[in-house]
């Protein structure tokens, strides 16, 4: 299996505080990976670095062997933890927008998912609730045939039923060649879909292991291990 993401001594500072410190991490294709940690641990910083929204102070980060830039953005599909689509757009406008800029966008898939969730493509985003907007964003992001998906808090704002649908969408919509990174602190909800977990705390990598390994070695669920590692 080939490497999709490689971080070497990755460091990002904001002023004098380090959001990420000397992070070494290698992720392979074909995995669903949970990026777990308490608030402010550096999860979003790492995801922003992968997407070129931040530039590291030290160290390197490579996606499929290339530094973040135009080429990497073509193969990374990113769901930020906020609603980033312009309000005035109709759902169908956003689909056209993605189709225009991303060669790997599958329009048919997007409309299928919209239909499945009973979302009207002619509605303006302004008229949708926050949770519904998040669903639209997830549909857009998952309708790309990307190599790396970065989902920052994808289930934070939606109800449990939609949560199940979203997780199901994630599992069924990525191919074996791709890697999915899901950042969240709602661990119990996503535990079952994860292949690997990454724990980060105060900008440091605490643990990177496969879920099976943890269950075998520690004899406990990821959720209880998380509570143990990050006990306040």
């Amino acid at each position: 299996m080939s490497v999709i993401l490689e971080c070497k001594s990755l460091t990002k500072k904001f002023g004098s505080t380090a959001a990420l410190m000397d992070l070494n991490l290698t992720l392979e294709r074909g995995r669903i990976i949970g990026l777990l940690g308490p608030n402010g641990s550096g999860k979003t910083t790492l995801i922003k670095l992968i997407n070129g929204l931040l530039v590291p102070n030290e160290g390197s980060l490579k996606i499929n062997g290339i530094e973040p830039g135009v080429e990497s953005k073509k193969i990374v599909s990113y769901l930020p933890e906020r609603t980033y689509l312009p309000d005035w757009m109709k759902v169908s406008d956003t689909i056209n927008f993605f189709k225009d800029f991303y060669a790997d966008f599958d329009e048919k898939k997007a409309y299928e998912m919209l239909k499945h969730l009973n979302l009207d493509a002619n509605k303006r985003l302004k008229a949708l609730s926050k949770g519904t907007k998040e669903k639209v964003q997830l549909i857009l992001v998952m309708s790309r045939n990307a190599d790396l998906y970065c989902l920052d808090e994808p289930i934070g704002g939606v109800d449990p039923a939609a949560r199940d649908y979203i997780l199901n969408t994630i599992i069924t919509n990525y191919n074996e060649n791709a890697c999915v990174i899901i950042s969240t602190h709602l661990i119990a909800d996503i535990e079952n879909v994860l292949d690997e977990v990454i724990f980060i705390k105060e900008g440091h990598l605490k643990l990177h292991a496969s879920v099976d390994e943890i269950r075998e070695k520690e004899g406990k669920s990821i959720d209880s291990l998380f509570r143990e590692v990050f006990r306040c």
Partner: protein
Amino acid sequence: MLRKLLRHELYATGKTLLPIYGITILLSLLNRLVTNIDIFNGPMEIIPAFMQIAYGISIVATIIVTVIIIVLRFYKNLMTDEGYLMFTLPVKAYQLINSKLISSIIWTIISVITVILSLLILLANPERLELLKESIDNIVYILKISFGENYVLLTIELGILLFISMIQQMLLIFVSIAVGHLFNGRKVLGSFAAYIGINTAVQIALTILMVIWSLIGGSSLEELGSIPQLLFPFTIIMGLTLSLLYYLVTNYIFSKKLNLE
């Protein structure tokens, strides 16, 4: 990619601007009609008065709203949550700046054309057009007397100068917003501070340049004849230099110092 960006840019801004330009043209047509038919007597007189006020507002709005939309679009689309969408597109930061700059230039020119066209619709008749032609001839005549053969050069320079000043003003707004976004949590305030700060710094630098110029005995810039050879070329070069500087700083911030909230 630039073409796609530009198309989306024009669509996003045009949905507000085109109706405004349309209303301005429509109101000038209506006003022309109303001034030509004299059926509004007594309390009905309020109709032409109202029409004139509406027209006046639409003319002012054409220019002001264009500027506001340019500024707001740049800020909202790049520096707020929408920035997460725009800066993760597979495009270079300078392509984002280019698309915004070109679209702003297009709308500014269209807004000026709209105002001129609307004034012509409202006021043009054979006598007035004759008068306008005479005034233009007159201006050309005066220019010829004052600058001799150089008057053609002067006219071309004036056109370039207007165009460069427009670009310079837009890039100044862009760079101020980019610098302002570095002030986390106080982005809007930071942008205003940056705008005032950069403007002041440029004024001071220009004044110093002028003083040095006169100290080393350069010819007086106030002499009329030196305008086409000295003052205008100097201003054009300054405008180009500053524009380039603003552009490069904006691009640097967007590609290396980006920090969306």
